[in-house]
């Protein structure tokens, strides 16, 4: 009898055979290089059509006054409805943005949950920094699109997912702030050429500055940007003298680009096609196209180049098709130095309006204008803080068209109603947020819908 008892108790572990032939999460994370693979998969989400490749453009540029979708029947009205503020909680782009942002977050959490297996201390630091940077980026998009969203800190089970509820907006911003702060401390300033394109401490600081700017925490924003402008980062970033060089496909990962979605058209699976909006001037708002002075170098970036009968991309996204992969590979800027400079000008003006000709805010605003040959503003052009504020917002529009900032800038500055009215859209504050996807509402009993959308 005793012998039988022993057998029964000893069976459990013995039978719990782990598969050796398939890579599974349970046996996978063992070494530094395993964690690096997990980190790379986090970056890979950026290239997804459901995130930066397409839907991000639809949800920030098409949503805004920059781009108009003219095809009601295309993709069953997916993009058209977003443009016309008619999209409901079952819209495919709105649903996918949520779904794949959380998929990216899960991938980041898989890195962070297993980071302990790393043996090389400096690599471990870097991997943790990269995962936290990308997780912060995903939550920053989520909170701006959907408002209060559940914070998922680790890999969770199905029942935990079902039981979750929406964390308030301040907690989400707090979490994003922690991630970017940690990333800025953990990440290197620069990489050797072979690893360029990965997240850096400067990119994390720039994103942190933008988080503060979005929350109207002006002095925090200024403090962070002054670090980027200080000797600590001297020689790392600069405004390229010619704005057209920033986007050239043979000048990728240049000193102005702080973080991009990186592609390579010559590598199978790492290139892409042209975005539907990046080649038709008629999609662009006339006020945007007419907003430039005649010899503003940025005006030319929005002119089409003919590649073939059906492909006429804007100069900004011009690239030729790789003969083998039949793909193009222009990168998508997420953060560039010009953005930091304009954020600086904006935050300084919000702290204190300076009407003098030695205004630092004016200096930084002009820095960006001057680079493209636009007439520099004089201090006498601005009668008030508000006038300067409007000038910065306009400058951001002219500097970053199709770079996925416009909608966020409009809602951040509470000017979306006014701007959208100019293109014939009457919207309300309810339209500032997208709805929580319908399928998620159905599965999570603790969720509530954003105001203005059907509760079901």
């Amino acid at each position, binding site marked *: 009898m005793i012998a039988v008892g022993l057998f029964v108790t000893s069976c459990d572990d013995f039978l719990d055979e782990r598969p050796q032939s398939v890579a599974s999460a349970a046996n996978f994370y063992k070494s530094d290089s395993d964690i690096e693979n997990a980190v790379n998969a986090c970056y890979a989400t950026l290239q997804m059509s459901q995130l930066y490749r397409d839907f991000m453009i639809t949800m920030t540029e098409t949503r805004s006054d920059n781009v108009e979708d003219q095809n009601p029947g295309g993709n069953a009205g997916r993009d058209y409805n977003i443009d016309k503020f008619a999209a409901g909680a079952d819209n495919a782009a709105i649903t996918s943005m949520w779904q794949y942002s959380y998929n990216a977050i899960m991938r980041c959490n898989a890195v962070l949950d297993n980071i302990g297996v790393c043996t090389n201390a400096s690599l471990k630091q870097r991997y943790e920094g990269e995962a936290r940077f990308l997780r912060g980026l995903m939550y920053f998009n989520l909170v701006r699109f959907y408002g209060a969203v559940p914070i998922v800190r680790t890999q969770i*089970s199905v029942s935990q997912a079902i039981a979750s509820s929406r964390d308030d907006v301040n907690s989400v911003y707090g979490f994003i702030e922690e991630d970017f702060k940690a990333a800025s401390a953990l990440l290197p300033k620069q990489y050797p050429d072979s690893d360029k394109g990965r997240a850096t401490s400067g990119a994390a600081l720039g994103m942190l500055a933008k988080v503060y700017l979005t929350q109207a925490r002006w002095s925090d924003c200024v403090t962070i940007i002054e670090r980027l402008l200080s000797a600590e980062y001297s020689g790392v970033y600069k405004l390229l003298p010619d704005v057209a060089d920033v986007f050239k496909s043979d000048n990728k990962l240049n000193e102005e680009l702080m973080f991009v979605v990186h592609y390579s058209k010559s590598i199978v699976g790492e290139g892409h096609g042209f975005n539907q909006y990046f080649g038709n001037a008629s999609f662009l708002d006339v006020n945007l196209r007419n907003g430039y002075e005649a010899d503003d170098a940025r005006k030319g970036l929005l002119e089409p180049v003919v590649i073939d009968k059906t492909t006429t991309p804007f100069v900004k996204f011009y690239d030729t098709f790789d003969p083998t992969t039949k793909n193009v590979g222009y990168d998508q800027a997420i953060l560039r130095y010009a953005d930091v400079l304009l954020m600086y000008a904006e935050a300084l003006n919000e702290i204190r309006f300076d009407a003098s000709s030695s205004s630092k805010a004016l200096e930084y605003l002009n820095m960006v204008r001057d680079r493209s040959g636009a007439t520099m503003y004089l201090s006498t052009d601005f009668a008030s803080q508000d006038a300067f504020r409007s000038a910065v917002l306009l400058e951001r529009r002219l500097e970053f068209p199709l770079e996925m900032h416009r909608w966020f800038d409009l809602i951040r500055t509470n000017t979306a109603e006014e701007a959208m009215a100019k293109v014939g859209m009457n919207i309300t504050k309810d339209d500032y947020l997208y709805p929580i996807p319908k399928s998620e509402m159905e599965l999570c009993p603790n969720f509530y819908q954003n105001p203005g959308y059907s509760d079901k």
Partner: protein
Amino acid sequence: MKLRASYGVSGNFSIGNYDYYASLVADNYVVGTGVGSVAPGLYPSTISTPDLGWEKTKMTNIGLEFGVFNMLRLEVDVYNSNTSDMLLNVPTPYLSGFSTALQNRGKVNNKGVEITLSTHNTFGDFRWSNNFNFALNRNKVVDLGDVNEIVTVNNSVLYFVTRVGEPIGNYYALVTDGIFMNQDEINIANDPNDKRIATVAGAKVGDFKYVDQNGDGVITDDDKAIVGNYAPKFTYGWSTQMGWKWFDLSIATQGVYGNEIANINRRYFDSMEGSINCMTDALDRFISVDNPGNGKTVQANRSATGKNGTISTWHIESGSYFRIRDITFGVTMPKNWMNRIGIDKLRVYFTAYNPFTFTNYSGYNPEVSNNSNPLTPGVDYGTYPVAKSYVFGLNVSF
């Protein structure tokens, strides 16, 4: 006469190897200046479910066998089975990082009757045997764990609902209610105070009206209803063999009655958008107020308006059919003739496989691809047609 009874518990082990571990798949990035180099990536593609177990089915079966010599034999089986811990790929909140998770979830009851009747008769030189079969199964979800229903999507457009008290895997779609025959109907629909006809956003005269299931005066996704199921009311079959002297004839048939098929090919063939050739339904379409067709078929439009493109009862069809699976006619040459030329046996025959199918189903084949997810059965999306074949044969043995 014989009476049988049995009770058993069995497990369904159609659980994949190591399904309970999260498996990893590749998703690469590219880093570095110039052409760059691949940064190989791997991420968990399924959520880890360490407690995954077998489905368990408890089945009670009572059978009756009744025979009259060798001439007639009747078998009747009645069963009642309860499956618990069903292995279902259940939608999970996206915030988990995944869209579905394989889970042991819920209970389902199946009960049914199976009847087989076979006869063997000889009348002089004439030999005749028959086999009739009939089966009926009723399937009902008893429990789904902590939820009352699971809604699943197939091909991004077709919804299914599995709901407690209903069978597994029901089509879940809008119910069409004729078409808007004139502008007055559109005006009534668009008047928020007049709920006689529910609003269909963007609909024009000649577009579908729908049943307003929740009565809120607007047709939305919430107006979906259970509109059918791939499980038939019953199935049946008949096969017969006849022989007379040198000749033999056999016929085998099968039939299915009372099921529905989600023929989502109709999104193309029957969309009236003219992107590809349409089915003859298009002849009955709405053309004008004075020439409204059969009142059920929408107007032709290069890009559908209203909700014409949304999956509705327009895309759900009856799947009942009766098929003659094969007919064989054979002649065996008399043995004494053949022996003279040194042949032991010679038979010439002709077989027709699948020569006739009687059905109202508009697709190629009412036996549609039954994809592996039990929650989304009965989708026809490019099902292969069944081949008819005719065979002449010669059997010679020496």
